[in-house]
């Protein structure tokens, strides 16, 4: 009995550790006082100021654009890579390919950022592209490191999927491309959505790599947050953080509703199939 007590205590401590900082962040975003940690009454004035902060809003727009484009690109690349790793058996260079996929996951951000910047500089010297650094280079950099995450997500979904469906389609004469689009893609679609969301979040969160490969005039939202946070705390950042947390919570809420509905639909379909058959 004593041990159970210790375990639930540890669990509560862990959850408190994870959530209390986030709750405090949200609470203090409604604080009247400029001193973030002294409560001066309820106010939404920081949200108002946030809406008038043009530098921050344009950085947010740029970040959302980069995140959307790079997440889409990395889903395409990651799906190809995941398919190659789990469905193509042995092919020449598979070991190197596997290494190239997993290495970006553990590579320190400072190295990824530095190495991509040096590549862009060398390419500009050699072939004149990319002309300076900006949105394009940030998008390429984010695609590169997020594609690995998508590849891992897709690969594990493919590994858990029943391969006999694809084989049956192949036996019935469907070409590989058709098998992929008609059978495989619908089944791994949840993994693609999860991969896209993960890539989007990682891109929206990155400050280190973006700082290396961005140019003048292309400042992303995390870069703005980072430079303002470095000089202490400001209630505006609390307000911004609250909005971002709200956005994530809403996204997860919608995703879970869609998933439960799909699950229910699938179960209903299975029952129908059983009854008619």
């Amino acid at each position, binding site marked *: 009995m004593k041990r159970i007590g*210790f375990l639930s205590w540890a669990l509560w401590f862990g959850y408190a550790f994870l959530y209390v*900082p986030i709750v405090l*962040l949200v609470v203090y975003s409604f604080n009247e006082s400029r001193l973030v940690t002294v409560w001066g009454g309820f106010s939404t004035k920081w949200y108002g100021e946030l809406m008038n902060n043009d530098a921050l809003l344009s950085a947010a727009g740029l970040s959302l654009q980069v995140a959307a484009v790079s997440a889409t690109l990395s889903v395409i690349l990651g799906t190809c890579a995941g398919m190659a790793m789990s469905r*193509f058996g042995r092919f020449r260079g598979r070991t190197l390919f596997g290494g190239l996929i997993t290495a970006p996951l553990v590579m320190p951000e400072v190295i990824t950022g530095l190495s991509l910047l040096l590549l862009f500089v060398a390419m500009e010297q050699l072939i004149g592209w990319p002309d300076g650094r900006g949105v394009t280079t940030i998008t390429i950099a984010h695609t590169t490191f997020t594609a690995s995450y998508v590849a891992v997500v897709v690969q594990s979904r493919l590994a858990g999927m029943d391969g006999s469906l694809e084989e049956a389609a192949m036996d019935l004469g469907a070409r590989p491309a058709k098998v992929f689009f008609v059978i495989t893609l619908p089944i791994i679609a949840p993994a693609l959505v999860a991969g896209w969301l993960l890539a989007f979040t990682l891109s929206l969160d990155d400050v280190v790599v973006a700082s290396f490969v961005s140019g003048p005039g292309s400042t992303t939202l995390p870069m703005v*947050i980072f430079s303002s946070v470095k000089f202490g705390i400001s209630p505006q950042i609390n307000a911004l953080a609250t909005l971002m947390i709200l956005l994530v919570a809403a996204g997860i809420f919608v995703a879970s509703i869609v998933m439960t509905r799909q699950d229910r639909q699938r179960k209903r379909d299975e029952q129908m199939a059983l009854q008619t058959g």
Partner: protein
Amino acid sequence: MRGAVSALAAVLGRLGLWGRGVVVAVPYLWLMLFFLVPFLIVFGISFSESVIAQPPYAPLVEWLTDEDAGTTKLQLLLNLTNYLRLTGDDLYILAYLNSVKIALVTTLLCLFIGYPMAYAIAKAPPARRGPLMMLVILPFWTSFLIRIYAWIGILKGNGVVSNLLEWAGITSGPVEILYSDWAVYIGMSYCYLPFMVLPLYSTLEKMDPTLLEAAADLGCRPFKAFLTVTLPLSIPGIVAGSLLVFIPSVGEFVTPELLGGPDTLMIGRVLWNEFFANRDWPVASAVAIALLLVLVVPIMIFQYVQAREAEER
């Protein structure tokens, strides 16, 4: 007719193969160009010399034309001074040792907080495990930067922790935990905790409960059963989780920059400063290569553990 069909089939077959080739080639080429090649460039530039120019490094390879002899030769200059500087200057060695120390403490903190959590979740009724795990992963979806920022308000003098300690009468006056190594430990273990809990949970959940029942039937006390049965069986999870926390912690930049003091030296910070403050690209590259050397062994162990896990499945 039959000939036409078989010809068509052959063409389609080739197309199928071609399609397969593209599926491999596109991500392969992308990763080669934007991951492997950049890395080789870093390696190359780490042997270069810093110059005041645009870009600020001397080319490694140069065509030298000797006017008198009328010959042209290709000269490759490899400069080892950057590496000599790394080994000769205490700053760099201290930064390396400190990074490893901070990463180790972070890993241990994550293990101490994460193991009981993972164990408790694995012991919970099956229907409750999913939501409990979800609660561990959820914070991961909110911005890393924002989560680090949250700790500034908690740890600074006159912050939440300081006020709590003062209210409880433990301290008399504000305590400044921010801008110290402890702030970095707390912030980093906070951010990396889900990485520890996930693999631990997946090994603990797979464990056969009858093993513990057998131990109890044979008269083993629960704590001893935990030490002799559960703990050894969960070692793969401990190793995977520790590496997932340790590896990114060593090269961490944002957390020590925001929560650490000016004397919280870490390699990520040194690299950043060499690049942005000193504009010394060759030394920054040499620091990057040396950082990778520190990480090569843990990364290889990690790959090995992952591969073995994949085989067992």
